[in-house]
């Protein structure tokens, strides 16, 4: 965790997750919540390394999702812009909240400066995941003339070879959309594999209108609010229990390499998981989870 960290003009490739800045594993860390990160003008691609294998060539120290460009758990006021983000087989970027009540040891060490991140924080107990902006990124597509570096397949990393510019991410922008107090998160001016905004994918399975995919990433920063997505919360809870081999349709899938985007296997998985999460969103278990969460909020 850190504040005002800038990552610019790098090539970030061949990892399980390219960039991760997380608040919720930093117990009582000064500077809570993480904010004002800037990731700009980078090339973030082919982070599909699988180290959750029998004999990993590099031993993983922490659990992160395979196939992901950027992970922001509990980040506020970040700016992610003018990057090329492609060929990450799970998600180009992930953003989700961590309520103060769920942060380790019950929240921050010391004071949270009022008004820095989320409106009403820290009094309302939700200091993370507000005001993040993802804009003018080119996703699911490599620059013209791009060539992967020689080390791209080191440690058996996988990638989409060939000269075609289209190199889709599994999903471009995954948004947790967990709480209605997650305000000001927005995605605008991004272009997808075909060069248009319409080909950008997100925010991931389920959400406010679980029966009516595809979902929409909010582009209006002034009116963006979270959607109390219980299925996504349940998913993150399962991911919080660490790497395992559970393979149910609503289990955390971070620990296995996703199928190549666009392949029959990938499409089948996406549809199956979407149906399962939509069903969960309407289930008594989801309602119970929402109630439990509501009790935690001030």
């Amino acid at each position, binding site marked *: 965790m850190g504040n005002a960290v800038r990552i610019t003009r790098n090539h970030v490739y061949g990892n399980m997750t390219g960039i991760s800045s997380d608040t919720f594993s930093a117990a009582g860390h000064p500077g809570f919540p993480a904010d004002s990160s800037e990731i700009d003008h980078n090339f973030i691609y082919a982070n599909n390394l699988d180290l959750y294998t029998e004999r990993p060539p590099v031993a993983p120290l922490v659990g992160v999702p395979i196939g992901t460009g950027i992970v922001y758990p509990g980040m506020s006021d970040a700016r992610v812009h003018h990057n090329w983000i492609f060929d990450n087989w799970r998600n180009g970027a992930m953003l989700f909240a961590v309520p103060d009540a769920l942060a380790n040891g019950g929240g921050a060490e010391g004071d949270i400066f009022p008004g820095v991140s989320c409106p009403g924080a820290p009094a309302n107990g939700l200091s993370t995941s507000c005001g993040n902006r993802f804009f003018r990124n080119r996703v699911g597509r490599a620059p013209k003339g791009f060539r992967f570096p020689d080390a791209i397949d080191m440690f058996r990393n996988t990638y989409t070879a060939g000269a075609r510019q289209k190199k889709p991410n599994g999903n471009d922008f995954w948004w947790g959309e967990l709480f209605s107090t997650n305000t000001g998160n927005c995605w605008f001016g991004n272009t997808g594999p075909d060069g248009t905004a319409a080909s950008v994918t997100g925010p991931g399975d389920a959400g406010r209108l679980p029966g009516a995919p595809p979902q929409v990433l909010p582009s209006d920063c002034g009116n963006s609010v979270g959607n109390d997505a219980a299925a996504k919360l349940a998913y993150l809870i399962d991911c919080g229990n660490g*790497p395992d081999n559970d393979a149910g349709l609503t289990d955390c899938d971070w620990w296995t390499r996703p199928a190549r985007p666009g392949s029959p296997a990938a499409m089948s998985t996406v549809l199956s998981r979407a149906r399962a999460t939509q069903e969960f969103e309407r289930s008594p*278990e989801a309602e119970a989870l929402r109630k439990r969460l509501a009790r935690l909020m001030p």
Partner: protein
Amino acid sequence: MLVLAAAGVALPACGANDDRGGSGRDRDHPVDIRGVGLVRGNSTAQFANCRDWRGGSAKRRYATIEDIRGQLTPQTSETAASDLSDEQAYKIFQHVCAARFSDELRLYKLYARAQAFASLTTDAGEAYPVP
């Protein structure tokens, strides 16, 4: 090299949970056994990993959990209580550390993430039940 159990060495890890829900030991009676893994600053919390976990006895594993829980408690907290019971943490470590790739996984990171969502879970050591 692992440090063997040292009688009379009390962990400086803010004692332990209160007794609510049977989720830990009495902070007035800290364990007298070292946790698993490399010792730094009289604690193994920073470096203990799954390989260490597998090589430890049940007593040393619980000492590790108590150590980590104490280290992850904010200084302003009056107790080292956690929504994640030591028994839940033990089950999670057992589950994750059973995998071959887990040798180097840091236990404190596993603990921190599980603890973060513990208040939303139900059954010991399990995530909120999803279909």
